[in-house]
């Protein structure tokens, strides 16, 4: 790969790295894993840079690759562990989330991974239902139902927080 390619690639990494990591963090809830995921995405992108860089749908490629990387890690965990619906609280005592984002991420971590991914893609990445369906390789109806279930699960988890104040808080 020649210097111009490398420079172009470095520019991409600099431009997209932070945003991709933020998306990955919302999906996985762990900054270190998010960094690993994003770094893995960049390795893969570099490997096929000549071909991929020509695509107009480049951002979609990044998201798709990131999503699959996330799903891969998530899926293996899910296989080995308890289904997500029954996950115990993840925070150890004394490590309460201390800002809005942490509150949201802590709640997201307690809903099933595919619903979480749909929520992140729909409301964080601002993708349409159809774009999300394309990325996930499923029907638009599936995205809608996953989003609906995800939001239904998310609301009670955010009850009493800044996102969903209880009546007494209002």
């Amino acid at each position, binding site marked *: 790969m020649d210097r111009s390619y490398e420079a172009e690639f470095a520019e991409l990494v600099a431009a997209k790295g932070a945003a991709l990591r933020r998306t990955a963090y919302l999906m996985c809830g762990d900054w270190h894993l998010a960094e690993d995921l994003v*770094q893995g995405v960049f390795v893969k992108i570099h490997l096929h840079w000549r071909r991929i860089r*020509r*695509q*107009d749908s480049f951002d979609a490629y990044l998201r798709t690759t990131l999503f699959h990387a996330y799903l891969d*890690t998530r899926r293996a965990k899910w296989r080995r562990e308890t289904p997500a619906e029954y996950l115990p609280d993840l925070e150890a005592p004394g490590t309460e989330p201390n800002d809005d984002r942490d509150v949201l991420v802590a709640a997201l971590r307690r809903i099933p991974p595919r619903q979480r991914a749909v*929520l992140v893609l729909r409301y964080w990445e601002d993708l349409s239902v159809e774009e999300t369906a394309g990325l996930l390789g499923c029907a638009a109806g599936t995205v809608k139902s996953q989003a609906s279930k995800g939001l239904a699960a998310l609301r009670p988890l955010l009850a009493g927080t800044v*996102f969903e104040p209880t009546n007494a808080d209002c």
Partner: protein
Amino acid sequence: MPDLDTREDDWARGVFDRVRTGQDEPRWIPDAEGASRLSTRHRQRRTRVAGAVTMAAVIGVSATAYATLGRNGGDNRQVTPPAATTSPSSSVPSSSASATSPSASTPSTTPSTSPPTGSPTTTGTTTAKPTVDDASLGEYFQFTGGSMGGSGFGGASKGMRWSTDGMATIGTVWQGMDPTLGHVRALIANPVPLPLGLSSGERQLEIYGAGYWTPNGDITPMTRPTQHPTTPFGYVTISSTSPIASNDGKPNGPCGIPDQVFGRSLFGIPTAWSPCDTRPQSDGSVIVTTHAQNLAEGTSTIAVREFPSGAKVMITAASYLVYYRGPGGLSPSVTWTTQAPDYVAGPKMDSVPWTDDSLAAALSAPGVKGLP
């Protein structure tokens, strides 16, 4: 008054917008050089493997020719298509080595040095069989998968290892579908060689390989932004699921086939399916095939072999490719349906190279085994 869905959407957007800030994030600088180094290492390793495979193929063919031993009766660790009948459409390099180097035949990896796709091969004296070892299958299919009990993160993530027997099955099925190995290509290939061999106590639960059926091994037309695709592509998946994973999907696809493989909905197309054709096998497994009827986009065919243990090996094959219409043009999708807005089918393949029978035959090969 806004309806419930709109209110839920608005609430969710408000929630996510509130955290749309980079404040208090741990500092991190993505490592472009590191990614480049690792990628280069993958590429070099792939080249070395390709060279070794080429050498092994030449030696193997020569030995076979002299000893007239006939077909390779191996252990299905290698996919070996018929010799000498190398299709002009395949991207077999015309080098003196003559055996196919997997990486060389894939435009993605060495686009500037690959021979022109579709160029005729040499008609020289030795026509080695294009051979792909299972560790190189990642050049042709994009794999995802899951395992448990070991290092096992799935897909192409670091640490993922793959079942040797599972990949041998994928390779055997592919050989049955695509004897010249000249058609199926991945748009985003896995780094190869795939790390084969599970660690102690690890169990492969699922392997899902997705590839595009190209007319001649050339996938580059798919990578060019276009509004009007003219090259007909198909979409093929080969998956192998263990008894545990096979119980995952709801069996509400045609013929009681689970409706999802690796979380991807396969049957989201509103169509009628042909009657289920069931073929019992001597080992107690059963092969079931069906195909979509009257589908405007093309054909969709499904064949699944279910073993007594519950493990399944499945092929899905569509004679068309669905594109997603984004702002910059059409990009390949991995869905079968064109019902949603912005999804359009590309041109369908004029001649569909598979049938229910041929897919069943590919699944019935002795080398096809279910994951334990």
